[in-house]
């Protein structure tokens, strides 16, 4: 088992066009570092030196990780992480 990460269209150039990739790690931070080994550059598109990038939303099992623990959010096998760009509603 691993953690499934759903990748939005605009970042699939970094995952050979794959919609979902798998990774491991105890926290989101560790998971993104693990993904970056196989998909170089991916981490940099999600995270900057201040934390999660402003226009990137990341959900752990559909809940926004900014309300869970940000990059330190605990993740475990079987979880689904969804990455989406921030879009307008209304």
């Amino acid at each position, binding site marked *: 088992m691993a953690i499934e990460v759903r990748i*939005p*269209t*605009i*970042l699939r150039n970094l995952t050979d066009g794959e919609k979902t990739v798998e990774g491991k790690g105890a926290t989101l931070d560790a998971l993104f570092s693990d993904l970056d080994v196989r998909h170089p550059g991916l981490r940099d*598109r999600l995270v900057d030196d201040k934390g999660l*990038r*402003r*226009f*990137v*939303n990341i*959900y752990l099992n*559909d*809940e*926004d990780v*900014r*309300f*869970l623990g940000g990059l330190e959010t605990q993740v475990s096998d079987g979880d689904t992480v*969804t990455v*989406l*760009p*921030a*879009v*307008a*509603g*209304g």
Partner: protein
Amino acid sequence: MTLRFDSLLDSLGGTPLVGLPKLSPTADVRLWAKLEDRNPTGSVKDRPALWMIQRAEKDGVLTPGCTILEPTSGNTGISLAMAAKLKGYGLVCVMPENTSIERRQLLEMWGAEIIYSPAAGGSNEAVRRAKELAARNPDWVMLYQYGNEANALAHYETTGPEILADLPSITHFVAGLGTTGTLMGVGRYLREQVPGVQIVAAEPRYGELVYGLRNIDEGFVPELYDESVLTTRFSVPSRAALRRTRELLQQEGIFAGISTGGVLHAALGVAAKAVKAGQRADIAFIVADGGWKYLSTGAYGGTLDEAEARLEGQLWA
């Protein structure tokens, strides 16, 4: 309270809060629906639209004969179109092309001019286009629902107090996240009045087309958004929203728009958590509009798979 009003605009708000006896999990964990479809044009957006217009009139920005410009995926435009018609303003709406046909019909009926923005990029593109148009037409008045404090203020002054008056025992408030105006306004009001109240956002998760930006830095966060008002935020896939929209209709008789299904999905999640923790809960959520404007999307008929496929690429909230 009197139910007689001098005009349609004066009848804004004062919407019913109805219990959900069948969908509420226990006698101690109850769900309450705030029926915002019972507003003049049938959506919650009548409140911010009228507040934004009144503010602009008060500030002297909006004067007779003016043209209003607004980026909108539909409901705000429809509310503005009705109010503009009655008050003698012109209205230009910038709307993504992947919205339901009923929205276009309603806008045209009230005399609005529609400028379409491309489907890819969703409302982000509409916002970008509207800002360009505003720069080229300095005499047009862009109310700009995403950054206009009067949007959140409408909910702080009306929706929030109405809910608390009807449900003093409220523990959770759940609403859809678009401009963020409803959650910011009601959320701030309830936080001031009810210690420990939880404010929960349900954000629609669309098909991939809508997120088809060229660059992740083209993403958009409304200027009104203040993360500290929220307790948490859920992303609700279209399938879950459709399923809950149908449950609300079948179990409680409420014919709501698809975004309400997404909100109900989050509300039921919150309810299940309260049951599990052995806590009592009174959960109020917003029914943003009725289902009428979405009949053409096929959301209410056939199997869920079919409905989900038909909704792919559409802006359903």
